[in-house]
């Protein structure tokens, strides 16, 4: 899986394309930890190109959420694909990681 990062004044956008599975999970955690360490406390993970996610991937997102919150910011997800949406709902995780329609909708006031 490939990750790219774009920073705007309001938030950092992490783009992940491919499969967010047990192989990619530790990598995602590293990428977001680095982004937050650089001072971008508000992070949007744009999942437009993420066609598949397993429990390890979801676990990594939770780990990233913790990193962002502890820095005083937040992590949000946007543009989720049907399979990812299904995983979120199957695990009731959408209650914690609310999927936003778009990157802009994720931090509307930021």
């Amino acid at each position: 899986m490939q990750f790219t990062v774009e920073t705007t004044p309001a938030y950092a956008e992490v783009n992940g394309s491919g499969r967010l599975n047990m192989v990619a999970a530790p990598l995602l955690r590293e990428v977001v930890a680095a982004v937050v360490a650089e001072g971008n406390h508000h992070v949007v993970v744009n999942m437009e190109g993420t066609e598949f996610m397993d429990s390890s991937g979801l676990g990594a997102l939770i780990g990233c959420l913790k990193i962002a919150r502890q820095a005083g910011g937040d992590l949000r997800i946007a543009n989720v694909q049907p399979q990812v949406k299904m995983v979120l709902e199957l695990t009731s995780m959408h209650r914690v990681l609310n999927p936003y329609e778009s990157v802009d909708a994720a931090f509307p006031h930021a």
Partner: protein
Amino acid sequence: MKPFATRLLIVLTVILGVNYLAWRWLDSLNWSAWWIAVPLVLAETYSLIDVGLFGLAMWRIRERKAPPPPADATVDVFITTYDEPLDLVMTTALAAKDIRYPHSTWILDDGARPELADLAARHGLGYLTRSGDWADKPRHAKAGNLNNALMVTQGEFLLILDADQIPQPDILDNTLGYFNQRRVALVQTPQYFSNVPADDPLGSQAPLFYGPIQQGKDGWNAAFFCGSNALLRREALMQLGLAGYVTEVERGVHRALAGARSAIRKARRSPEAADPLVAGLLDEVEAATDAAREKLKAGGSLSEITYDLRTKVEGAVRTLVAGNFAALEADLAEIAAMELGSELGTPEPDQLDGAVERMSQRDWSPLGALGSVQAVLDAVSVERPDEAQPVMPLATISVTEDMATSMRLHSMGWESVYHHEVLAYGLAPEDLKTMLTQRLRWAQGTIQVMLRENPLAQRGLKLGQRLMYFSTMWSYLSGFAAVVYFAAPVIYLTLGILPVSSLSTDFFIRFIPFMVVNQLLFAVVGKGVSTWRGQQYSLALFPTWIKACTTAARNVWLGRPLGFAVTPKARQAEGNSWHLILPQLVAIALLLVALVVGAVRLATGLNEPVGTLVNVAWVIFDLLILSVLVKAVRYKGFTPDERNVDAVHR
């Protein structure tokens, strides 16, 4: 033929057992000696239930043959260690490296020993210690060690090995095939010990458990995880962790918001609240927590509720602190205008912003003075701030994480497999003290799980699975029954008090057939393996089992520590260990005294011959049970030439 014979024996055992026990309850109790009659019949009822649960497992004994392994599975081999000698860890690690099926080998060193890190690097092995997240957080022993490693590794399947469990090269080839079934989450193989002499004085081998019992549980899809020599599917563990995470977060946020009102009320009565700044802040916090509670009731998203609450409270703190500074600034300006404090100067706006920012931060915030309110706000969170990792795949509710984890897997609908082939050779304790510590820990962990997540009440488990888990927990209650079994014959022989109304043919025709069929059942399912050692220890270690029950109950209900110790792998210093079995020595003394007194009472006509005969036989049985401990105390450790070890140490 074999299953039919087994099942016939099970049916007969249960029928004869119920027949005997019904008579005991309805028609045999000596109520004038109720204080021993009732405990004895309860102990016998306990034992019959134990036998019934055992029979239920034997009903479905399942022998499996592993399908061929998949071609391209990814596997992480985890070797967990805390303080075991380095050469022992490395022996296991290098054997793990030599496992034939492609895999990555990792040493999970909870002791964070630099020498071990060096050794691992030199041999090209992975080496992991706890991440910084674990500082000042509960470590959760082995479960925590594994959870830490799960976050930084990638294999689809995990082989878990204790530091002393030397794996065979074909351990993965012979087990991975089971995972072709998509719902299989666990494959457990036996734990076998290479440093145990043939007569096994410490009862280390568990041929009945790693054999018919696990095979029987397997028949009910309830073979369980025993902590080592097992393979797990990462996806299943992660799902378990996620489900646990959502539950914990929901529970935590609900509980915190429910307690917010009373925390704020309490804070209002505190001396700090006399400050109008703090009082105003409390109003804001109350409004914000009320709003959060409403949103939660309406089913709002937890991430938004927690984020909004925190943002609002932070905003309120900042506004109030800034207000205070504005007043301060005005005062300073006035002072300056009076030309009295010109040297003080007026703070620059930049400086002021910085000061407001700093004073608003958590540690200096006016809320910091109000511990209870701050605690509520901290708990309204999706980060599980009390834990090192938000997602904890392996259960941490017990010191034996394994059983709790597999029970949760089963209740989520996953399947397990028991593969009956020794694929790793471990080291058992070689002295009584270490052995007792280990048994105490297992028993405590099992009772903890029984009290925290009782299988009879867990959602998602099938009836058979509930009973299989319960059966193991039930067997750890044997300490109480043992005390009664030791006391009853002593009471008769010394005082002449019988717990049954009469020892007539009524007793013998019911009791003897039951006993005979029961022992026959053991012999048939044990396939000639000696189960006697196990029977001895299940009664002889009664102080350990009772201590496990009382300490675990105090731990679960009153939050007291267990006094838990890691089982040492190296033999403890030589020394006299008779003091470790003091209660049993007292029991032995009482039984011997009872024999003498019983003989005297018989000779003087105070006791009757039949009662004496039965109780003397009973005392002899009790002494045979307890005699294993004499052997155990005198055991000097394993000397390799006692058996062929070539097969073990390659």
